[in-house]
């Protein structure tokens, strides 16, 4: 961690967004993670994405479980409420919070231990609910806070710092999400901000559950030779299938792409995500093909990155429940309570 906190006074020359806020207005408290931790880069990408989308800070809700990654919700958007849940159970807190107020931006941050071991059940079911939130899984294949045990995402043959090799089959969050019917599935690398920021923006604009598996190396316990989640390994073995360019609602599309290469996807809020296929064989709207592609590449020790799958048509949690448009926490009591006159009618059915 760094012990030198930057002064909160921002350089007046910093660019401002539509709300008149600069990037530093989206920062949180000082990170206490190890110097060089991949998670801090993800935090920076979240800050950048929220700034570029000009989200009012109070419209963001930050949710996390327990672990190094889950600490990071304190490090961005200081003006947003945050909830550090118990280990592996952030999705249920997110479900309740979203049920109470559907109009906020729910950003969940979790790790591979929090999501794929203790919390795999809650992750599976929040995917099934298609809850409108972005779920960023900072994946380093290792338990950091308890000093270096393998997590459920550790690859076969990947070696721990002490040289022990993992023999158990890893859980790939991307394949898991695809199998469970997630409506937005992406993978990125903490060291690739160019790719990650647009993905986070697209995920925030997606109506439904958006999961981004971010390979985010642990510099202390899993960045050595023999690890498949080290900076060097991930850089060498990542292969982007689809690049996503995020286009805000009010911006016109200026970049021109060769026809056939670009698939425009209109998000719920009217913004557009342009998917550029880097591999001509790839189709990010075909769940079965996407799944097969990711598996084939995994056999070749490659991580497929980019916006791997998107389905804008699946109804989200509130659409399925037929909830009123306003936030449930603001529905006037007079509308919720049937009152004394109706009570006697209700009681008559019990005589």
């Amino acid at each position, binding site marked *: 961690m760094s012990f030198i906190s930057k002064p909160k006074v921002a350089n007046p020359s910093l660019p401002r967004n539509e709300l008149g806020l600069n990037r530093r207005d989206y920062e949180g408290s000082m990170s206490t993670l190890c110097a060089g931790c991949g998670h801090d880069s993800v935090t920076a990408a979240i800050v950048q994405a929220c700034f570029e989308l000009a989200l009012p800070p109070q419209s963001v809700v930050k949710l996390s479980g327990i672990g190094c990654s889950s600490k990071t919700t304190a490090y961005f958007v*200081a003006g947003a*409420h945050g909830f550090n849940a118990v280990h592996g159970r952030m999705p*249920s807190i997110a479900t309740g919070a979203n049920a109470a107020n559907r109009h906020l931006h729910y950003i969940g941050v979790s790790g591979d231990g929090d999501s794929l071991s203790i919390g795999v059940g809650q992750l599976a079911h929040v995917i099934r*609910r298609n809850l409108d939130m972005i779920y960023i899984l900072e994946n380093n294949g290792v338990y950091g806070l308890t000093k270096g045990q393998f997590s459920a995402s550790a690859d076969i043959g990947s070696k721990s710092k002490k040289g022990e090799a993992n023999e158990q089959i890893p859980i790939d969050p991307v394949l898991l999400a695809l199998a469970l019917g997630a409506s937005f599935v992406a993978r990125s690398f903490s060291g690739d901000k160019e790719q990650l920021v647009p993905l986070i923006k697209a995920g925030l604009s997606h109506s439904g559950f958006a999961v981004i598996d971010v390979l985010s190396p642990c510099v202390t316990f899993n960045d050595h030779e023999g690890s498949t989640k080290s900076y060097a390994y991930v850089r060498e073995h990542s292969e982007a299938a689809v690049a996503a360019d995020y286009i805000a609602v009010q911006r016109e599309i200026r970049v021109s792409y060769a026809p056939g290469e670009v698939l425009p996807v209109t998000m719920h809020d009217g913004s557009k995500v342009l998917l550029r296929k880097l591999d001509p064989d790839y189709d990010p709207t075909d769940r079965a093909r996407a799944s097969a592609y990711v598996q084939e590449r995994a056999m070749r020790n490659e991580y497929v990155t980019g916006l791997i799958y998107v389905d804008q048509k699946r109804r989200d949690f509130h659409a399925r429940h037929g909830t009123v448009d306003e936030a449930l926490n603001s529905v006037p009591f007079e509308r919720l309570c049937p009152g004394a006159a109706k009570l006697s009618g209700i009681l008559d059915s019990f005589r």
Partner: protein
Amino acid sequence: MPERASATTRVNDFTVKFANVNGSGSASANSLVMKAIFRMGVPVVGKNFFPSNIQGLPTWYEIRVTRDGWRARSGHVDIMVAMNAETYARDVREVVPGGCLLYDSTWPSSTLLARDDIRTVGIPLAQLCNENFEGARARTLMKNIMYAGALAALVDLDLEIIRVLLAETFAKKPALVESNMKAIEIGYRYAKEHFDCPLPTRVGRMNATAGQVMIDGNTAAALGCLYAGATVGAWYPITPSTSLMDAFRALCARHRVDPKTGKHDYVVVQAEDELAAIGVVIGASWNGARAFTPTSGPGISLMQEFIGLAYYADVPAVIFDVQRVGPSTGMPTRTQQCDLLACAYASHGDTRHVLLFPDSPEECFQMAVQAFDLAERLQTPVFVLLDLDIGMNDWMAPDFKWDDGYRPDRGKMLDAGQIAALDRFQRYLDLDGDGIPYRTLPGVSPKAAYFTRGSGHNRYGVYTEDAAEYQDVMDRLARKFRTAARLVPPAVADGRGAPVAIVSLGSCDGPVREALASLRRSGIAIDYLRLRGFPFGAEVGEFLAAHQTLFVVEQNRDAQLRSLLVLETAVDKQKLRSILHYNGSPMTAAWVVDGVNSALARGVAA
């Protein structure tokens, strides 16, 4: 205790028990009989003894007809409707001498049914059904209705009332009213023609049920949630709490759907497990919705970790624990009060929780509303401890009252204007000295943001591992718990000045009140304190101090209420004598009377 008379006429004071096979459709026939008696103005108590099974196992339904309006089981059976050959032996044994047994005489009478001190009424139900109805399912169902008809003749029920009840049940299928009524009449006529009707134990019209309903506690609690303005419900199906959420959904479907848009003013989440259910409740409550979860013992076990988080981070939550027999899976369809300690101290670390103990459906309704007010006022989990007996059995209850002037107590929740007027918002300051801090909701103002965490935090909500800062927050939470003792519903005392008293709670109230009347009739001066909430108010300690001997009546093996009283009041524990009932059946007054009498005989009391 009512004296047992054999062949003398006893109007409106007897118990009829139905022995059935579960899944055979008997429940509607049994409830038809009970409703008919209720509509004749006669108080009734219904108790269902059912297996954790879908089809084929023995099940019993007991209706106590009680002109005095007692709310407990009688503990004996005057009339047995024996419809399950598998349980003939035990069913026939249960009938009191001079009582009556009704069975299906289509087949040669079982020797098991032979008893010369009871009246045996054989009606060839299967044969009559085969002669009058087509189809296997219809015949099975009509057999149930037909024994109700025979019983109507035996205990003198009003057929016109039965017809009206059937018409209400089958309002959308008039043809079924006729076929059901036909079955009733066949049974009725057969009994009249072949036996002396009515029996000495029979029903006579009264006017004691006006302004009363027959309702179960789960439905009443669901109604309370509706009226309290709960908008988020989360649950995992578990007996015996499932019907609470079923009732809430049904009520919402009627009263919370916009007729024009079809949009819902509520969300019910069927979670993947109880861990998620309580998480949803905590997330929704944190974000300003009134949210609740109904569950039972195993669910409480699973929720422990999250309950500790809500306690430590000052988050409201309402939990209905419809207690069933433990430990472990236990007996899911049997009743007990075995989660008192598990709820009072739920979760690891120093935690203590607010508990409410309804004794009846009317209190389930009231306390559901109070639970939301208390949870938000105190910013903490509140448990409403029902049990299977209150939750799932049909109770006669006075009409629930509702004051249209009621507004939810949202507690110390700051709105945008109040936040704007602050220099700075700090989450866990105890500004009022009552241990309750101020809270804000997400989405209102960036100035109001704070971080909710179960890790060590200081009075500003900031992460800490500092000894003094940690202790400061824990001491505030203890202060808040003392505030809670002033806010929970106070205990209710009956009588004063006797040296001996009963202390009890929840569904024990029915048997205890009946026992008190009996004990007092026999010349024993005895007082009664019914606990309604935890932490205990000052009145509890005072009552305990004012009595020399206190019988603590509760439905668990380990005297959990007694433990709670010893831990949380200054009472001398030698004064507390346990009367424990924990076999899973609802308690009877006789159990309490015997417990008190045998203790007094041993010279326990002064």
